[in-house]
């Protein structure tokens, strides 16, 4: 049962092949049995999940249940969940139990989904390897010596290892797409503003966006249907109409123009990874698409611009963690200054502190114009590059990452090397565009992700291209051996 896609589970539940309680129990058993290997969950509340599953079964019995009724879903621990700890991977929020649900959580509840638990992540979503979590690193199910990517590494690993059929993630600079690529699953970062940010712990407000992570494009479409839509309580959420993201999945790709940016196929790209990507592109060509060479001339400025803007916003977004109202407070503060400094010194990890320092510096008097303002100008140029490309092509394609997953610890002492992991994903966030990562091959045992980038609010087309690709290939159906585990073919 755990090998089923969300689409298959929906069908099975409707046809009473199994109940939501059975499905949920199956995944809970797998988490119990296997997550010691991966550390992909921070919190699991089995009884709450089973309770919700039982309620879902009752609704299913009435024949009038919303689309995701009874489907277990794991949520990144960045989404606030009413009554359940929301740690954001940080000691700072280790004791934080929100009295409210994020809009994304509310929407999944309304769509009937069952929350399995909260997944591990880089602290405050800052990282590309899931090594910065207060709860320890997540391990890649394809090879537990490798990182799963980050920051939504727990969600990616949980789905890859079939501990959950699907999960939510958030993507500020690649945090859905890069771990999806490393773990061989499908992940979608929607257009900025497509999914509400309310109740999602903020990292960089102008870049953060929530999206689905699952085995297939079709599953991502099913999840996006539940997540997308205007939220009057998030001023940056878009009023653009949503659509049924499943509608266009089967459209054929005849005449589709796919842009291949020179800058994404240059020196930094691992050659074996490049070969996988080229293979995937030939497949798309065979499906009727035309490949067009394009250029994103300001690509070289992406990493520097991102690493000014994101830390700048983060530095002030994280000011609220001061030990005064909730969250971690240092023991026995002697005065206000001591309360602030020791709380933040002890509550935050190194990567978070590094970004707060960088961001604070970039916004300081005398540096603002040279850094933050300049970075915003660069951001406009980067966006313009994409707009220019989209006059010639319908989507842009390339590798999600420069290479496959790397070993745990390999880059954790070298922040710059770590930041360069996101070289192909960051620009999408700066431009506010939708982007996907789709399994496109293996380098040895390591999955490779094909990145698809679309016009603003053109999620349907990305999902269509990914779905047609997945109809023609089986990369998204490959599963890591470690996840075969003791339960294979058994109860679940």
């Amino acid at each position, binding site marked *: 049962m755990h090998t089923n896609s969300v689409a298959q589970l929906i069908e099975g539940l409707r046809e009473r092949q199994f109940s939501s309680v059975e499905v949920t129990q199956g995944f809970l058993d797998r988490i119990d049995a296997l997550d010691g290997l991966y550390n992909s969950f921070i919190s699991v509340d089995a009884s709450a999940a089973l309770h919700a599953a039982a309620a879902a079964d009752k609704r299913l019995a009435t024949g009038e249940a919303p689309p995701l009724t009874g489907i277990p879903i794991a949520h990144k621990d960045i989404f606030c969940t009413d009554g359940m700890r929301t740690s954001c991977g940080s000691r700072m929020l280790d004791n934080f139990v929100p009295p409210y649900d994020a809009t994304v959580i509310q929407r999944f509840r309304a769509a009937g989904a069952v929350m399995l638990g909260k997944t591990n992540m880089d602290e405050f979503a800052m990282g590309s390897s899931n090594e910065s979590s207060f709860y320890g690193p997540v391990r890649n199910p394809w090879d537990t010596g490798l990182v799963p990517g980050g920051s939504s590494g727990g969600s990616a690993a949980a789905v890859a290892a079939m501990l959950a059929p699907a999960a939510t993630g958030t993507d500020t600079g690649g945090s859905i797409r890069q771990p999806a690529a490393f773990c061989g699953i499908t992940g979608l970062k929607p257009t900025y503003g497509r999914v509400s940010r309310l109740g999602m712990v*903020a990292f960089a407000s*102008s870049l953060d966006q929530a999206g689905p992570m699952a085995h297939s494009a079709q599953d991502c479409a099913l999840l996006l249907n539940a997540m997308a839509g205007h939220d009057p309580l998030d001023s940056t959420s878009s009023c653009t109409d949503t659509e049924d993201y499943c509608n266009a999945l089967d459209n054929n790709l005849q005449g589709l123009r796919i842009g291949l940016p020179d800058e994404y196929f240059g020196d930094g790209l691992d050659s074996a990874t490049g070969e996988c990507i080229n293979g995937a592109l030939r497949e798309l060509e065979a499906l009727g698409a035309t490949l067009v060479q394009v250029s994103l001339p300001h690509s070289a400025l992406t990493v520097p611009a991102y690493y000014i803007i994101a830390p700048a916003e983060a530095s002030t977004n994280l000011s609220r963690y001061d030990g*005064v109202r909730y969250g971690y407070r240092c023991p026995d503060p002697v005065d206000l200054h001591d309360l602030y400094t020791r709380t933040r010194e002890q509550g935050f990890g190194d990567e978070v502190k590094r970004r707060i320092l960088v961001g604070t510096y970039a916004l300081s008097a005398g540096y603002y114009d040279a850094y933050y303002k300049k970075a915003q100008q660069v951001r406009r140029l980067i966006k313009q590059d994409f707009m220019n490309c989209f006059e010639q092509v319908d989507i842009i394609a390339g590798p999600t990452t420069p290479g496959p997953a790397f070993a745990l610890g390999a880059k954790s002492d070298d922040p710059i090397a770590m930041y360069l992991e996101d070289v192909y994903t960051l620009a999408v966030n700066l431009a506010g565009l939708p982007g996907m990562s789709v399994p496109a091959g293996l380098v040895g045992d390591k999955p490779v992700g094909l990145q698809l980038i679309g016009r603003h609010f053109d999620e349907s087309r990305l999902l269509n291209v990914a779905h047609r690709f997945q109809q023609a290939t089986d990369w998204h159906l490959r599963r890591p051996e470690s996840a075969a585990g003791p339960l294979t073919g058994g109860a679940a």
Partner: protein
Amino acid sequence: MQWEPVIGLEVHLQLATHSKIFSGSPTTFGAEPNTQASAVDLAMPGMLPVLNEQAVSFAVRFGLGIGAVIGKRSVFDRKNYFYPDLPKGYQISQFEAPIVGRGSFEILLEDGSSRIVGITRAHLEEDAGKSLHEDFHGQSGIDLNRAGTPLLEIVSEPEIHSAAEAVAYLKALHSLVTYLGISDGNMAEGSMRCDVNISLRPVGSGILGTRAEIKNVNSFRFVEKAIRHEIERQSEILDDGGEVVQETRLYDAERDETRPMRSKEVANDYRYFPEPDLLPVVIDDAYIQAIRDALPELPGDKRQRFTEQYSLSKYDANVLADSRALADYYEAVVAECGDAKIAANWVQVELLGQLNRDERTIGNCPVSATDLGALISRILDKSISGKIAKQVFEAMWQGEGSADGIIAARGLQQVSDSGALETIVDEVLAASAAQVQQYLDADDAKRKKLVGFFVGQVMKLSKGQANPQMVNELLAKKLV
């Protein structure tokens, strides 16, 4: 050396919106601590601001009230600093692109003259909460009820040159914002808080001296005292050949002095940058026009109209147009009695006098404008004298009913019946034979004095109800 003070004022005006500027929490004053603080106000993780449109419309109304340029694309910024009563660790404010640009308005000086003072800008921002240092045994309490209350920060040009002018500016501003209905202007509850920037320069110099900023002065009286004190302090320093240090000072009302704030409290680099959780506020002409169309008559226009329509003196017009409530009251009295002059006198002397004595405002005045107008009508139709009217007014103030009711109940109707009056006059003349003789022997000047005596006697006997004009006529007829 003669020093000229150069003063600029920054007023933080609390806007009278129903809910906070970025959350749905109510803004009522005086609630139990932290009962009006939502997850947004507490800066819980993932919470986001949503701009209150009413705050925007109030700011635009203010802008139009001072003839300012309205920022058609204003931007919210984050002003970053750590303080326990600032839950997010930043205040959402407006820095580079405020909603209200340059404007000006008229202030009235004590000598009755007026002046135009420039406004540099006004911008929207959120208030912080309050730190409570008492009752917590060496710790501090935080009350976040006020956190997120909308403020309009109004920055004047440095065009004010004395404590008295500063007070006049604040009074005119208070009058304007209450006219506009955008603030309750309640100083005691902190609805208008003032920071004073002040420097001295030699009289005639065009160069500005080094300024000190005095924070958070919360009443007209304290503004005046703080400025006087600061002028004195700075001129002593300058007279001794010293230099004023640019610093932020705090006015201590109890000791009547300003003193420097600890440098820790002021040494901030606020790291302003555009608030990414909010979109720029874009305002179109139709929006501005709709607010313009709904603007009430403003104090200057009203004063002008009062002098023209009611032939009031400039002074009377200034007093009566001071607040919209008083002006409305006055006009209702005029509408009832039809005599603008007498109405002006009654409102200014009797009504304001009583309000002052009872420490009341026009808002909770026990005598309605219609009732006062009816009382004045009784003077005009000679039913009662002005003197009796004051008694009646007193009784009305005590809640004894309408003017007519009190006049009837107490039998205060003026006696204009010539037969009845004649009887009283005769009685007085008979009882004052000596004075009558004196009168007859006296010259014109002395006679006038003695007539006064007879009138007084008649009034005494008639309990003040005799029609004075008729008494005079009767006396003139009989004293020959």
